[in-house]
C-alpha cells in the first residue's frame, strides 16, 4: 500500500473512532436494554363457553406493550406466555404444566373459577403466585399462600345486588345459577344475605353446556325477581328466554355479564346488575385505556379487558425498583398496597388475597347503554 493511502486509511479510521466516541453514550444506552425478561404465564379461556376471556388476553398484551415501551419493569421486558384452557380445568392444568416445564415464569395469571381452582394446588406446589382474574368463586383464595384474585368476589357481588333488591322491594327471589364453583358460590352468598332480610329464595341450577333454560325459568316464574349467575353466553340466553317465556318480574344478573353480547340484545333492556364505574363515559381513570383498547381492537372496553390491563400495570408499579422473583412477588402482594388504577383507588389489605373493585348498580338502557343508578346509594 502506498504511503498516501495508508495515511488516508488511518485518517478515516480515526474519524470513525472519533464519531463513535462522540455518540457512544447513545449506543451504550440502546445496548443496555437487553436484560432477562419477566415471564408471565397466562392460562386463559380463549375457546369454549368462556371464550369472551379473549379480551383478558388482548388487554394483557396491550399492557405488556405499554410497559415494555416504557422500558419494562426495572429495565426488564415483560414476556407473556399465553395458553388456552379451553374453558376446561383439565386443559388448564395441562397448560400450566407445559408452561412451568418450559418457561418457569415469574408468576401466573388465570381466568375462570373452575380452571383457577384446578390450578390452585399447582401454584401452591410450585410456590409461584397465581392471580386469578374473572373468578368469583369464594374458595379460590381460601387457605392459599400463593393464589390471589383480582375480580369481584361472591361477597362483593352481593352488596350492590342486595341494595338493588332492597330498593325494588323484592321479597321473593328466584336464582338461576351455573352449577360450578363460581355459580354455587355467588348463589349461596346471595341466598344467605337475602334470607337474612326475611326474603324467600327459590333456586334452580344449570350446567355449563346448557343453552335452554325454559324449564328452570318456568319453575322460577312465580318470584318477584330472578337473578342469573353464569358466564356471558348463559346470561345472554337466559335473558332471551326469560323474555320469551313472558316473565314480568325484575331481571338481575351478575356483574361479569356486562358485555356487548348481553347489553346489545334488545331483550336485555331494563336488566339490573352491578358494574364498575369504567362504563361511565365521564369516568376519567379509564379514559386512556378505553381509547387505546378501542383503537387497537375495535371493541368496547369490558370489565374483563380492564382487569387484565390493570393487573399487569399494578404489578409493574408494585415491583418497580424491587428484585423480581417468585418469592419477592408474593411478599410484595402479602404486604398489601394501595393502587390507583383503571377501577379507581383499590386496596389490598396486608395478608389478604382478594383485590376487588367497587361495583355500582346499573341498568341496561335502550340501545345497549349502561345507566348508573346513583339514587340507589351505590356502594
Amino acid at each position, binding site marked *: 500500500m502506498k*504511503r*498516501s*493511502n495508508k*495515511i*488516508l486509511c488511518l*485518517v*478515516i479510521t480515526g*474519524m470513525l473512532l*472519533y*464519531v463513535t466516541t*462522540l*455518540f457512544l453514550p*447513545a449506543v451504550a*444506552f440502546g445496548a*443496555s*436494554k437487553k*436484560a432477562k425478561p419477566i415471564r408471565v404465564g397466562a392460562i386463559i379461556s380463549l375457546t369454549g363457553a368462556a371464550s369472551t376471556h379473549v379480551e383478558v388476553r388482548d388487554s394483557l398484551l396491550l399492557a405488556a406493550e405499554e410497559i415494555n415501551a*416504557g*422500558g419494562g419493569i*426495572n*429495565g*426488564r421486558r415483560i414476556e407473556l406466555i399465553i395458553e388456552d384452557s379451553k374453558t376446561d380445568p383439565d386443559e388448564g392444568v395441562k397448560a400450566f404444566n407445559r408452561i412451568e416445564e418450559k418457561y418457569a415464569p415469574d408468576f401466573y395469571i388465570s381466568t375462570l373459577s373452575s380452571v383457577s381452582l384446578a390450578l390452585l394446588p399447582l401454584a401452591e406446589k410450585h410456590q409461584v403466585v397465581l392471580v386469578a382474574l374473572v373468578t368469583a368463586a369464594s374458595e379460590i383464595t381460601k387457605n392459599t399462600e400463593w393464589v390471589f384474585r383480582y375480580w369481584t368476589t361472591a361477597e362483593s357481588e352481593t352488596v350492590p345486588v342486595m341494595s338493588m333488591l332492597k330498593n325494588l322491594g323484592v321479597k321473593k327471589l328466584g336464582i338461576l345459577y351455573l352449577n360450578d364453583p363460581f355459580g354455587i358460590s355467588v348463589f349461596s352468598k346471595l341466598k344467605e344475605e337475602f334470607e337474612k332480610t326475611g326474603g324467600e329464595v327459590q333456586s334452580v341450577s344449570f350446567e355449563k353446556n346448557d343453552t335452554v333454560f325454559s324449564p328452570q325459568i318456568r319453575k322460577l316464574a312465580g318470584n318477584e325477581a330472578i337473578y342469573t349467575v353464569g358466564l356471558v353466553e348463559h346470561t345472554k340466553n337466559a335473558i332471551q328466554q326469560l323474555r320469551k317465556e313472558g316473565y314480568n318480574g325484575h331481571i338481575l344478573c351478575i356483574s361479569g355479564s356486562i358485555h356487548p353480547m348481553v347489553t346489545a340484545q334488545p331483550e336485555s333492556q331494563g336488566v339490573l346488575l352491578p358494574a364498575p*364505574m369504567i362504563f*361511565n*363515559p*365521564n*369516568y*376519567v*381513570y379509564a379514559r386512556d385505556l378505553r381509547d387505546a383498547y378501542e383503537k387497537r381492537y375495535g371493541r368496547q372496553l369490558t370489565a374483563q379487558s380492564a382487569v387484565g390491563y390493570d393487573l399487569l400495570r*399494578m404489578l409493574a*408499579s*408494585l415491583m*418497580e*425498583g424491587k428484585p423480581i422473583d417468585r418469592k419477592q412477588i408474593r411478599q410484595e402482594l402479602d*404486604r*398489601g*398496597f*394501595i*393502587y*390507583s388504577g383503571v377501577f*379507581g*383507588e383499590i*386496596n389490598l*389489605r396486608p395478608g389478604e388475597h382478594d383485590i376487588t373493585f367497587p361495583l355500582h348498580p346499573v341498568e341496561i338502557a335502550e340501545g345497549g347503554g349502561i345507566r*348508573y343508578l*346513583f*339514587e340507589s*346509594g*351505590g356502594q
Partner: protein
Amino acid sequence: MKISTKLILAFTVLVLMIAGIASYSFFRSRNALEETLGTNSIFIAEGYLLRMNEALEKNVEILQIQTPRRVLQEAIAASNLRYRKLEDVPSHMDRLDKQWTSATPGSTIPLMHDILDSELSLELKKTLINLYEKKQGSRQFEYVLVTNEYGAPVAMTTRNPFYRHDNEEWFKTVKKNRLFVGDVEFDESFQKTVIPVAVPVIDDNGRFIGAIKASVSADGVIRKTLLSLKRYKTTELLLMTTSGKAVYSTNAFRFHEDLSGKPYFKNIKGLSGYFTVEEGQKQRLFSYVYSEKFGAFISPHWVLLVQHDLDEVLAKSFILRKHILIATVIVLILGITIAVYISRTISKPLHRAREIALKMSKGDLSERISIRTHDEIGSLMQSLDSMIDTTKRMAELADRISHGDLTGGVQPRSEKDVLGNALAHMVSDLKGQVSDIIEGANVIATATGEITAAASQLVAGSSETATSISQTTATVEEVKQASTVANEKAKEVSEVAQKSMLHSQRGQEAVKKVIEGMGSIKDRMKQLAGDIMNLSDQSHAIGQIIATVNDIAEQTNLLSVNAAIEAMKAGEYGKGFSVVAGEIKSLSEQSKRATTQVKTILNDIQKAIGQAVMATEEGSKVIEAGVRQSEEAGETIEVLAQNIVGASEASTQIAASSQQQLVGMDQVALAMVSIREASAQNVNSTRQVENSAKNLHELGQRLRTLTANYKL
C-alpha cells in the same frame, strides 16, 4: 503525497471539526437542557401542588356553599335547640355514642336510621356524592357529616364509626370559625385515602351553629391533578410527609410506609429542587416541593415528589442526538464524496496528461485529449493538445519522407523551429543521395540476374551426379551384404566339415572294435558248440544208466514177489520176510517210477541239447557273416573319412577367401559413402551459390523498386 489524498485529508479534517463542534454543542445543550428540564420539573411540581391546593379549595368552597342552605340551617338549628334543652349534654352524647359504637357492624340502629335517612342526609348524598359521581364518574367526596354546635351528628351520607365529634381536632378548629384541612388519611370504612376538610356553619348573625365535615377523595384531588397536567406518560406523583412517610402515590404504595431510606429521599434538600437517580436500568428525574408555602389548604407537612423517566423527558434530546449523529455521518459521507470528486476533477486530467506525455515520449501520438473544461486545467490540456498536433504534423512529414516522398517542401514555423529547419535540410540532402543510389541499383540488378542463371545450371549438374553416386553406393551396399552372408555360410560349412572329420575318425575306430568283437564271439560260439556236443554225449550215457536202473528195479520187483510167495509159504515164520518183500517191492516200484521220470526229463534235455546244437551252428554262421560285414563297413568308413578330410580342408579355404572378399567389399562401401557425401555437399554448395545469386538478384530488384518509389 497525492493531490487527491491531500484534498481528502483537508476535507476530512474540516468535516471532523464540524462534527466536533456539533457534538460539543450537543453535549453543552444537553446539559443546559437537563438543567432547564430540572428547573421546569420543579415548576411542574409546584404546579401540581397549586392545582391540588385549588382542588381542595374548591371542595372547601363547595362545602361552604352548602352552609347557608335553608334545609341545612334548619336541621342544625333544630338539633341545637334539642341539645340546648338537655341538662347534661356531654352525658347525653356519651350515652348515644355508646349506643352507636356498640351497634353490630353492618346493622343499623334506629338512631342511625334517623340520621342516615334524614332529609338532609339524602339531600347531601344526592348533591355532594351522587351528582359528582354522575358528573365525573368518580366521587369528589366519599363521605359528608353535618354536626350541630355540640359536635353531635345531624346528617351523614354513610354510617360513621362514632357519634360524638366534639373532641376531634377538626371540630375544635371549625368551632373557632376556621377552615380545617387535615392530613391525608386512610379511611378504613371506604378503604380509600381521603383528605378530611371541614367548614363552620354560621347563622345569619354570624354565630357558629354547627359544622360540615367531608372526606375528599385523594384520588379526586391528586390523581386528577396529575391527569389534567400530565406532561409525560411516565410521570408519577408521590406525596409524603416531611419525615418520609408515604401518604399517597399514583403508583402502588403502602399508606405511611417509611420511605426515608430510599435513594430519592436522601436527595431532598431545601424547599424545592431536582435530581436524577438511577433505579435498576432506568434513570429518573425527580423534582420535589415542600408544601408549606402553598396556601391554607395544603398541609404544611407534605413533600410532593414528581418523577419522570429521563428517557422520556430527554426523548427529544435523544432524537436530536440521533439526528446529529445521522447528520454527521451524512456530512462525513458528503464531505468525502465531494473531496473525492474535486480531487478527481484535478487529478484525473493531470493523470491523463501524464499518460499522454509518457506515450509521446515513446513516440505514440495517437492519443488526443478530450477534457474540455474552462479552468486552468482545461487551458493546460488545450496547450498539450496543440503540442500533440504540431508533433503529429512533423511526424506525418517524416512518414512521407520515410515513404520516399521527397516532393513536399518543409516550411519551418520560425527561425527557432529547430525540428522544422532540420527536416528541410534533411529533405534537400536526401534528394541528391537517392538519385545516386537509383543508378547503382539498376547496375546491380542486371549483374545479379546473370549470376543467378549460371548458378542454376551448376546446381542441376551436381544434382545429377549426386543421384548416380547414390545409386552406385546402394548397389555396393547390396553386394557387401551378399558377401557377408556368403562368408558366414562358408564358415558354417568349414565348421561342419571339421566336425564330420572327427565323427568319421570315431566311426573307423568303432568299426575296428566291432570286427574284433565279432571275432571274439565267433571263438566263443565254437567253444559253446563243443560243450553242447559233450553234453549230448553225457546225456546218452545217463540214458543207458537209467535203463540199467530200470532193469534192476524190475528184477527187484520180481524178486520181491518171489520172496513174498516164499514168505507165504513159510507161514508164520515168513510173515516178517513177507513184510520186507513188500517193502522191497514198493521200493522197486518207486525206483521204476523215478527212472521213468528221469528218462522223460532226459529225453527233454536231449531234445533241448539238439536244438542248442542247431542254434549254435546257425549262430556261428551268422557271426561269421557279421564279421564279414563289419570288415566291409570298416573299409567303407575309412574311405568316407578320407573324403571328409578332403572336404573339410576345401571348406576352410572357402571361408578364408570369403572373409578376404568381405573386407574388400567394406572398403568399397566406405569409399562410396564418402563419394556420396562429397557429392551432396557439392549439391548444397551449388544451391547456396544459386540462392545467394537469387538473393543478390532480388536485392538488386528491391533496390531498383525502392529507388523507383523515390519521388524526386
